[in-house]
Each structure stands twice: as C-alpha cells, then as structure tokens.
C-alpha cells in the first residue's frame, strides 16, 4: 500500500513515531489484562510523546525535536498522524498514557491565559499526570445541550453535583474538564476544571469488552467545590462563547484524531493478516485488497480533513463522515481478519482477539454512528458534504 503524501516535517514526524510504536504490543497486551499496567511502561518513548502532545513548546524543557524540527502536536494533522502511528502499535497503550488528550483541547478553546498557564504548568511537570474530558452522562449520553450535572452558586464560588459515565482515564486522573449546567438552556452550560483530589469527587473503572487501555470510568460529583477561576473562560468570554462551544470545538478537533486511532488499528490488523497468511489467493486475497483500498482512501480523507482544520476550515459534516467511515472500517477489518486467519483464530491468536474486541470501541467514542449520520445528512442538505 502506498503511503499518503504528507508535508516534509510531518513525514519526518511519522517516521519517528512509527519507530516508537514498534515496541508497544507486549505492553498493550499487558494493559488489556490489567489497565493499571501502564505504570510499568511509562519509560517507553511512545509514552513520552503522549505525555507532551499538545502542550505548547514554551512550557517544555525538552520538547519533541527531530532533526531541524520541533513539534508540540498542536497541529491537528501532526496530532492525527502521531495518534494513528501509535495506535498501529497499540491503541489501548496510547489511550492509557498520561497527558492532555481531549481536556487540553477544551482548555485551549475556553480557558483564559491564567487558566491555560496553570493547566499546562501542571501537565509539564516531570511526574506523569493523567487527565479526563467529562461530557457523557448516564441518562443523556453525550448530548451536550441536555446535560444535567449541576453547577450551583455557593458563596463566592460554586458546588458541582452530578454523574458522568464513559469517561476515559478519569479513575486515574489528577485533572479533568467537566461540562455542567449553571442555568437552563444552551447558554447555561459551563466547562470547569476539576482537581480529582477535592472532596466529593469519586471515580471508578468500568470493566469493558475491549479497549481496556482507555480506562473508561464513571464519575460521581457530590458537591465538589469549584472556585470562579476553575470555570473556563468565566471572566473573559460571554456565556454564548463558553461551555457548549468548547464541547463542540473539542469534539470536532478530536474526531480526526479518533479516526486516526481507528485507522491505525485497521492497518495493524490488515498487516497482521498479511504476515500470517502471505499467500492468500482468490476471494480471500480480493477481500484483503478491498479493505486495504478502503483504508488508504479513508487515511487520505482523514489527513485532508485534519489539514483543513489546521487551516481554520472546520467542516463538521466531513469530520463526522470520516469518523464514521474509520470506525466502521475497523470493525469490518477485524471481522474479516477473524475469517481470513482460519478457524478458532480468536481463540488461538490473542493479538487478533484483542484487536477484534478493541475495534468495537470506535462506534461510540466521541459520538455514535447515529449522531455522525445526522451531521452527514446536514451536509447533504446544505450541498457541502459531497462538494
């Protein structure tokens, strides 16, 4: 399969990350058995890349430098390529790593200078810091306009009460962004930075069928004290530019990254089939080639969309479309691999079994297929999706 062309500095980054991803599979298998095992693998270069990704260079003593280039991965394309390569090594390992991930994008979108400084100062310290992005609720899913977690005035600050579910890494995090409701209506939504050591915060791991490195968690917020300065953009942004806008921006910026995760896993499983069955012929070979074509086409589309985001062109219909295609391709590729690798392959091949279970996660991460299809429909109605 030919590699999609990328700008020179991104090609250099891809080669570097690809090397770092080559050693992740043993760690990924261990994390699948025990999600806390990431603590034993933090010395790997891949964990270092994740820990620093999207932290501005000015906060880092030793940013990622490769040859003449310096990277902070705040470019959506560079972030997407990095995540795809690490997910080729192991998506669960990548998701289990410390670092800003989605919470950083939310802080960037909404936080004032002081809030951003405090957040990045914390994340750039030598000790590993995990973060989380708390949007989804037990009764309402990820429908941001309907969330019920309440931010109630309390003296000169607030109290935060409610519950969140399906939140990656929350049971291990030190910091996180929680979306909540201060008042009725879409303008009443806020995003607050939460320190998980504060009284009233509780998180527990939710056992999952796969992708255990994501360390999906449930949160209970029982009157957690929130100071005004923890409400992102409270003193600098109008209510119409705060909470909901941050949630939407974060999801849009992150969907190509998530698509990259699915595409990295898809590449991994198709390469696994080719290694294990190098002489496939007839219909089996045609099936594999069809999947590889679809993979290459979706990768190109994803890179185009990430590049457009970097250029300030955020097209929610196309973002939704590529996320859906990538998630569905990962499932199709793992189902095909279980066929092509022969009878009892799921029982006999633990790596295949892991990818097969992991691939199901993408359907619901950052918006289900139903939600994405609605965005695609909007694009069709506005004549933008296929333009």
């Amino acid at each position, binding site marked *: 399969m030919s590699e999609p062309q990328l700008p020179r500095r991104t090609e250099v980054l891809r080669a570097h990350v690809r090397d770092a991803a080559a050693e992740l599979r043993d760690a990924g298998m261990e994390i699948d058995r025990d999600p806390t095992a990431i603590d034993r693998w933090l010395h790997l270069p891949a964990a270092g890349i994740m820990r620093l990704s999207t932290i501005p260079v000015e906060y880092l003593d030793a940013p990622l430098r490769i040859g003449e280039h310096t990277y902070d991965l705040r470019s959506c394309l560079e972030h997407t390529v990095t995540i795809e390569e690490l997910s080729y090594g192991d998506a669960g390992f990548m998701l289990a790593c410390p670092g800003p991930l989605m919470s950083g994008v939310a802080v960037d979108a909404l936080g004032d200078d002081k809030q951003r400084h405090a957040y990045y100062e914390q994340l750039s310290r030598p000790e590993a810091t995990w973060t989380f992005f708390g949007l989804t609720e037990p009764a309402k899913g990820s429908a941001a306009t309907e969330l019920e977690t309440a931010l109630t005035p309390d003296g000169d600050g607030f109290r935060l009460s409610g519950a969140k579910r399906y939140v990656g890494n929350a049971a291990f995090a030190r910091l996180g962004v929680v979306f909540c409701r201060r008042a009725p209506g879409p303008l009443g939504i806020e995003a607050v930075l939460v320190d998980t050591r504060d009284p009233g915060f*509780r998180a527990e*791991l939710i056992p999952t069928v796969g*992708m255990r490195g994501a360390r999906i968690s449930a949160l209970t917020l029982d009157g957690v004290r929130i100071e005004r300065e923890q409400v992102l953009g409270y003193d600098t942004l109008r209510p119409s530019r705060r909470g909901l806008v941050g949630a939407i921006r974060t999801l849009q910026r992150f969907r190509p990254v998530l698509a990259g995760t699915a595409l990295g896993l898809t590449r991994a499983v198709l390469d696994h089939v080719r290694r294990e069955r190098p002489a*496939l012929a007839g219909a089996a070979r045609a099936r594999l080639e069809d999947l590889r074509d679809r993979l290459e086409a979706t990768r190109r589309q994803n890179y185009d969309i990430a590049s457009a985001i970097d250029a300030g062109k955020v097209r929610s219909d196309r973002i939704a479309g590529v996320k859906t295609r990538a998630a569905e391709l990962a499932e199709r590729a793992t189902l095909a691999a279980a066929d092509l690798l022969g009878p009892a392959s799921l*029982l006999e091949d633990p790596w295949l079994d892991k990818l097969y279970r992991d691939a199901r996660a993408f359907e619901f991460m950052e918006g289900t*297929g139903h939600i994405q*299809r*609605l965005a695609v429909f909007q694009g069709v109605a506005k004549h933008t999706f296929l333009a």
Partner: protein
Amino acid sequence: MTTTDTTLPAPVLGWLETFAGELDDCHEQAAPGGTVPSPAGWTIASVRRLPAGTPVPGTSDTLAAVRDEPAGDRAAQVFGDALVRLHWRLLRDVLDGAVSRLDGRTSEGAPLLGRQLVRGTIADVALALSETRDLLGLPRPTAERRRRIHRDLVAAGRTALGLYGASSFAAEGPGRLLYAAELLGNTYLHAGEPEEGAGRE
C-alpha cells in the same frame, strides 16, 4: 476518592453462567453426556462441563476450552444447528432489551424510541432475525448455510449494539454475550483455512 475494582456485578456473571448453561444444552443435544469438538479440534463448554479446560478470555471464567479430536459429521451438524439457534435467541433478547431501554430514555423531551433513525435500526435487526429464523427452518441444513446465518447474526448483532450506545461496550452490557457468540461461531462454524496460492506474494 478513586477505585479501580474491575469485578463484574453479580447479575452479569449470572447472565454469563446462563449462557454457558445454554451452550452445554447444545452439547447435550448433539452428544448426550459429552461435548462436541469443532472441526479445527477445539471444544468450548461451561467450566462445569470442562473442568480441566483453559478459561476462554472475555467470559469471566464461565467458559473453558480444550484441544480435542474433531467430531463426527452428525454430532457437528446437530451442535452447529443448536449453536446458531442459541445465537439467534441471544440476539432476540438483545433487541428486546434495546427496545425496552430506549422506550425509557428521552432526548429533547421525547422518547428516543420515537426517532426515525432508531426505529429504522430496530427494524433492520428485526428483519435480519426474521430472515435468519426462516433460513433456520429450511429443510436439509448445511454447514455453509449455518455459516451464512451466523455471519448475518453477527452483522445484525453489531447493529443492535449500536442501539445501546456506550453501554454495549461495558462488560456488564450485551456486547459481552454477543462477543462470546461470535467467538463460538469463529471456532465451530468457520469455513476452514482460506484459499492460498504459492508465489502470490
């Protein structure tokens, strides 16, 4: 405070144990008092029926697997039919559970069950169940037909899980049982090694 306990709730273990018992019933129909190995030489049954077996991953020690000589054609056919019917019943339960769950959830003040996209998805799964039930009722079942029915049930199962959102991926959700059914089909109903040709790579 944070906890990282990954123990499954008791009701979930109960579902898995019930499923393991129903799998044993499939063995009982085909080989009374015994078990039926797959064509590739694996037997999967409950840990009660295979106490010396290796635990099957993802089934919380309710299922076990052992290496064994492949079964005769007659036993394999009876077991295969029973296994596909077990998968069918499981998917039917998953669909019914999704309808109940969605009926109790609202979005923008209206039941989720009222949404056209949701209704269409439910209908797609129901149509697959209807067609596969008719296929299962045809005379002279064959291994190839069982494989096709299994493939259709897997596809419909993935569609049905979408109706549960993220909860389908939690170990306490329906995804775990459908995964077990998929693994059993991969072991017992697989068409065999794919076609290979020398010198193609």
